[in-house]
């Protein structure tokens, strides 16, 4: 079994376990958090095959936007009061250490090849090919959402 298959197997198993966690837990907040882990792992499966555009779209739209809103909704509508208090600065120390270690490892291991280009014709050509389509999708999504919301609110007002 090669590394790709093994990593895919691990991603699949952890995704199934986190989905099970979302099913088993009674608290909506933890259920939403497990759901976010499942979505991140679905995006990670794309990363295994090097399909980075879909990975970015899933992480940005599903995990970043919709997942975050779901977590906020779940945390504001809770029947179960939280048992663990995370108040106090002590909890921040391991978080900062972990962030530092992860950031350092990424900085050391990932070979960044960032090139800043000032060739405006090349930038415009690149933008016109792919990003216009994605931007159109995003603008369309926002317009539809806002129109639907306005319609809902007007109907409720009447």
């Amino acid at each position, binding site marked *: 079994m090669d590394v790709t298959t093994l990593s895919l197997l691990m991603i699949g198993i952890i995704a199934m376990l986190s*989905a099970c966690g*979302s099913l088993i837990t009674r608290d909506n907040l933890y259920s939403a958090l497990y759901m976010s882990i499942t979505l991140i792992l679905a995006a990670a499966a794309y990363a295994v095959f090097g399909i980075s555009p879909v990975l970015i779209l899933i992480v940005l739209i599903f995990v970043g936007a919709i997942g975050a809103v779901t977590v906020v909704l779940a945390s504001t509508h809770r029947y179960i009061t939280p048992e663990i208090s995370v108040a106090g600065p002590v909890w921040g120390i391991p978080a900062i250490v972990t962030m530092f270690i992860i950031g350092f490892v990424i900085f050391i291991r990932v070979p960044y090849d960032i090139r800043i280009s000032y060739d405006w014709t090349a930038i415009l050509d690149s933008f016109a090919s792919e990003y216009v389509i994605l931007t159109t999708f995003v603008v369309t999504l926002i317009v539809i959402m806002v129109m639907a919301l306005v319609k*809902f609110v007007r109907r409720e007002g009447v």
Partner: protein
Amino acid sequence: MMVAILVVTSIVILVIGYLIAISSRDVIRLLISLEIMFASLFFALIPLFSIENLTTIAFGIAVIAIFTSGCELMALISSIILLDRKTKTTATDSIKVGGVK
């Protein structure tokens, strides 16, 4: 082997999503179940990228799936907020009728 892993993962997550939807008592849990179902869809889409002639089409399908499902989920989130404003609860029992009279 890899396709089998992806398909099995997708099916298991889809079934778990259905189970969450069936056992949900409030609409937020229903929203979570829908998002898990979409996660299973994303797993199921990956084998399309393995066919060389279908890579562009697979990317198009993935983009359309992501945006349409995102729209659908945002509409559901808006509905949940409006339901909470009207009925002061998010329990599924509070929803008496479906559709338009």
